[in-house]
Every structure is written in C-alpha cells, then in structure tokens.
C-alpha cells in the first residue's frame, strides 16, 4: 500500500507541510517496497480556488490509499472520502516520524475536516 505525506522537502527527514491543498509536494511512500517517489503539487500553490480538490486528485492518481497531512479542508476531505482514501493528521515534525507513528498505529483516521475552507 502507498501512503502520501505532504512535505516541503524531498527526503524522509524533511518536515511535514501542514497544508494539504497547498502543500509543496507529496512524498508517496510504498509500505511494501520501502521506497518512495515525489509528486509535485506546485501547480496548486497559486490556484485561486479548489487547491484541496486538485491535491486530492493528485494523490489518488498516484495510487496512494492514505494521506498524512497537517490540515485538510472540507472539500478535500469530501473528495478523499469519496475516493476511499484514509486521512491521518500527524503532529510529527518529519515525514519519517509520521510514517513511524502510522506504522505503530498511533495515528487515527480523521472523520471530519479539521480546518475551514478559504475559497472566495
């Protein structure tokens, strides 16, 4: 299974990007192969609206079945839930820490968006 973590860096030591829709990129970790790929989310940084929706599409298209991020707005939440993607919020500071929390079963799947949207 693959899991996508929002990050501003390019390595496992990189910090988690607390934003989901406007995260710089996603590190998509393959839990079976123990390797990862990076997926750019740059085109969304400047989207006027719907960044969360497009980011959700990006992670689904790259085959992830779960995401770990800091915050997830209501629309992204709706899209991810519809696609059957589990959403986890981590307070860990790095990607590696978040993965460790996930593997130890310390993360709970979110059942609701935890930030308000901010499209106009």
């Amino acid at each position, binding site marked *: 299974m693959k899991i996508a973590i929002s990050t501003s860096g390019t390595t496992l030591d990189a910090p988690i990007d607390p934003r989901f829709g406007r995260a710089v990129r996603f590190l998509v970790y393959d839990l079976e192969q123990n390797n990862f790929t990076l997926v750019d989310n740059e085109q969304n940084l400047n*989207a*006027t*609206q*719907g*960044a969360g*929706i*497009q980011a*959700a*599409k990006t992670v*689904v298209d790259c085959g992830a079945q779960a995401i770990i991020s800091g915050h997830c707005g209501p*629309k992204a939440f*709706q*899209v991810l839930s*519809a*696609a*059957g993607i589990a959403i986890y919020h981590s307070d860990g500071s790095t990607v590696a820490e978040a993965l460790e929390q996930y593997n130890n079963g310390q993360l709970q799947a979110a059942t609701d968006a935890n930030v308000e949207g901010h*499209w*106009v």
Partner: protein
Amino acid sequence: MKIAIASGKGGTGKTTLSVALAQAADKNVQLIDCDVEEPNGHIFIDAQLDKHEDVTIPIPVLDKTLCNNCGKCGEICQFNAIVTIGDKTMIFDDMCHSCGGCILVCPQQALTEQQKTIGYLDSGSNTINCGQVHQLSFIKGSIKIGEAMSPPVIRAAKKKADQNQLTIIDCPPGTSCPMMTAVCDCDFVLLVTEPTPFGLHDLKLAVETMRCMDLPFAVIVNRDGCGDERVSEYCSAEKIPLVLKIKDDRRVATAYSRGEGLLSALPELAPKLRSLLDDISTWTKPATEGKQ
C-alpha cells in the same frame, strides 16, 4: 446616467449618502443596493418592496448513468469546480462560474445545465419629498445565505434598472470583484471616505482601481473634522476633485440609530447634493453622448 457610490472601506457612510442623493434628486431616480452581502439601504427609505424574484445561475448537473469518468470536464474547468477521482465525478457547484465549458466538452452528454438560485432581487417604489417631489424606485440585491458568488447578483440588480433614468448604485465596500462589478460601466463614481489614516489608505486603493478601470470619479469626505487634513492634501496632490465634505455631526449618528437618513439630520445638505448631481451630469455629458 448611472452614478456609483463606492468606498475602499466599509462603514464610511456609503449607504446613507446613496440614499440621501436619491432623496435629494429633483427628478425620478432609481436606487440600487448592490451591497448584496449586507443590503441595508431599504431601512432608510421606508420602501414597500413588493416585487420579489430569484437570481439564478446555470450550473452543470451530472447524469451518473451516462458518465464514464473520463475526466475531460475537470481538465477544462478553470475553477476546480468539477473533478473526476478514480471512478467518481463530483461537482462543487458553489465554485462554478457558469462558463459551460464542461458541458461542451463532455463526450457522453452526461452534463446538463440547470438553474440554481444564488440570490434575490426585491424592488418597489415610493414618493419622496425632500424639497422636490419625485418617484424613488428601489432595487435591493441580496445573496442567498451560504452562496459565495456575488457578482451575478450585482449584475442582475443593475440589469433590472431602467437605463434611461437617473440611477444611484450603492456598491459593496472594498476593491475586489464585487465592487468592480458594481462600478463597471457607470458614468461616474463617487468615492466616500473618512479623514482618517484608514480612510486615506483605503481611498488610495479605490483610486487605483478607478484609474485601472478608466472611470471618472470624485471624492466625498464624510465625518469631516473627526480626523486630519491628509485626505484633502492627497486629493489636491493627485488632482482628484474633492466635491463635498460632510461635517462630523452628532445629529447624523442620532438619526442613524433611529433608522433615519442623512437628510433628516442635515436637511441643509439636500440643495448641495442636488447641485452635485447637476454638476456630475454636466461633467459626464460629452462622454455619455460619445458612447451612444
């Protein structure tokens, strides 16, 4: 002739001034409340708003049985309002700008247009006597609670007005899309401000917007005396006509709290506003004639 009353900042007295201008006019006038998020002009004119209609916009609706989730609709949408994820296509109609692109591009004819109510227009008229008896028609635009798209409601309110009558448009505050939609294609804009640092800051933004949109405008200072002279200095340095100063007066606040307008507090203002309207019609005449 269409005159827009705008300001870069809320709470400068835009609405009370719009109402006062409409009341002071010496001919039949229409007042359009385009501050659709918070329309309140009707409170001051005691109008019977007996006509009610919905403002609708077209949005796509999906027939799931026809959709094959090809994702073409989402690729063309510039507003991320429609998206295909795996085997699901979803529409976020509060983000839709009604461009119709997705409907055109869908190879399966799975999308059709449907009207969605996003706001309302209420209108009516009454007879005004502030020195000159005339008919005041009032059109109030308001956005439906929970909707985000105000420009279509503003356009609908403006469109309802009789193009041959004097029209006063009370604009939404700020300098973003709603305000620009309200001032767009007006013959003249009056920017209302206060003589304070905040007033000046927001006035500068509004002036920039006017210049960008190439609209003729002038400034009115409200609550004159409550601040400093910097707005006046700015206007003369920028060669912007400062056409009226309304003094800061307790009577205005008292009247306001009773739901009464500027003119019941300061009746002496009526002739000044009347001559301002005359001046504006002289200033805009060549432009208006040129357009027709």
